[in-house]
């Protein structure tokens, strides 16, 4: 590039990146330390703390719950989000203007307020079981991402292809499944991944929607840190980071990472 960058700016960028990545490496080091307290650099190496995750039943349970909620919540959000995104792109003129505003509300309203309000109204008020309230919360949490990503994908879809299929005698519903959906599958995959990772990492919505025996992994981490300051949490964190790496590899292989970040 033509413009030269000041050496001080380059130095600052290096420092910023050390600041970004350093703490994550520290977690990695702390997770294999054989001390009973969190230490870095690790004194001796052990994988004991990774085994310890499986020995603590609360971790086993919450890992399962987190995956269930993330998968089901994301599936539900896709189920109601794809038709909404389609309608927003296909029939924008007929739809009232407030509709797209409505769909960003779950981002606008603070997550912690959504969680607390669902606890009051759905869980306590209507007696809906905790797990379902949690599922509803997570569906709402990821719905705006689903609608936005799929809308972006539909925006570059040429709807005249759909019209051609219909005018050649294909039924509208069949056309949607055989023509429209396959053309936005990369958008659906991107939406799924973004929603899944958002749901797995969520604290604020889940915070109030946990009950006896039902909690999510991030909430369990917070509870564990309050009582024990041992490297177990570091090893759980390493597992979560590995999940992130797996997700990034999938994205890179299928969509290309830079395509998603844009």
């Amino acid at each position, binding site marked *: 590039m033509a413009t030269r960058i000041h050496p001080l700016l380059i130095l600052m960028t290096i420092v910023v*990146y050390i*600041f970004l990545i350093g703490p994550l490496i520290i977690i990695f080091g702390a997770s294999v330390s054989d001390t009973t307290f969190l230490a870095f650099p690790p004194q001796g190496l052990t994988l004991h703390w990774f085994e310890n995750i499986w020995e603590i039943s609360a971790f086993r349970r919450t890992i399962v719950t987190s995956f269930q909620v993330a998968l089901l919540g994301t599936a539900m959000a896709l189920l109601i989000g794809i038709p909404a995104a389609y309608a927003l792109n296909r029939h924008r003129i007929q739809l009232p203007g407030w509709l797209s505003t409505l*769909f960003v509300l779950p981002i606008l*309203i603070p997550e912690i307020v959504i969680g607390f309000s669902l606890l009051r109204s759905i869980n306590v008020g209507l007696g809906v079981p905790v797990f379902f309230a949690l599922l509803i919360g997570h569906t709402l949490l990821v719905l705006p991402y689903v609608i936005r990503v799929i809308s972006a994908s539909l925006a570059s879809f040429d709807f005249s292809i759909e019209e051609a299929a219909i005018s050649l005698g294909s039924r509208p519903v069949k056309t949607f499944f055989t023509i429209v959906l396959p053309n936005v599958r990369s958008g659906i995959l991107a939406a799924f991944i973004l929603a899944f990772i958002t749901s797995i990492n969520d604290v604020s919505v889940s915070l109030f929607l946990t009950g006896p025996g039902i909690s999510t992994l991030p909430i369990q981490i*917070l509870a564990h*840190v309050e009582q024990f300051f041992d490297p177990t949490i570091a090893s759980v964190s390493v597992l979560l980071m590995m999940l992130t790496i797996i997700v990034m590899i999938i994205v890179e292989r299928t969509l290309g990472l830079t395509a998603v970040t844009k």
Partner: protein
Amino acid sequence: MLSTPATLAISLFLIIPVAATISVTFSEPEGLFVPYSAFFDSAFQRTVLWRTFEVAAIATVVSVVFGLLTAYVVSRCPPWMKSVLIVLAVFPLLTGVVVRSFAWLIILGRNGILNNFLQWIGAIERPLSMLYTQTSVIVALIYIFVPLMILVLIGVLENIPDDLLQASSSLGASPTATFFQVVLPLAVPGLIVGAVLVFTASFTSYATPHLLGGSRQMMMGTFLHQRAMTSFDWVSASTVAAIMVVVIVTTVLVMTRLARRLNPMAS
């Protein structure tokens, strides 16, 4: 028709419950604004609100400055290096807030890395207590939001046509002058969008102030949880929730309008 399920879900499970939470604060038998005057009469609660503003504002300003400068350098890098730097910013962003806040617990703790290091080089004799201070919360929030700022601003900076920068430098402007007179004004709308994201997320954060601020540095998020689940005072908790909603909605509305007005490409 097709948007009905999503519309229903948001109405039933978001609008009605949140409206119910807010309306509770206006239906106290003692009077209309009693929960609010109770909130603002308490010096402690005023401090919590003010601290939340202060922490969120500082975290936002620092994230914006470092995010912009870093994004500027990244966007001028050769393509392969740019991809690496983008991946290195996406990775922390996709790693959960709990994990990233927890890292600072290891760094800033009494037996943490920073204390050990400072003792080793002989700068201090006894470990400092760095956790549960306002600074520890701010540092962790900056850590969490700088990657977001970098990625938002790389997108903004890449949309600035290269011709403009070349025109500026061929007309004799130094790189610094080009940055401040061409790049910065064009980046302002994107900067505002990024700043709003960081401010609202910091203002409503829970995990970070919980882990690094504890009960000593309570912020609106942790205070809402404490009111609801420790004091079981749901009216007071709902008041905190309503104040949060008002602050966030006002910030977003005012700032997006400002961003639109300041967009030099719009007219």
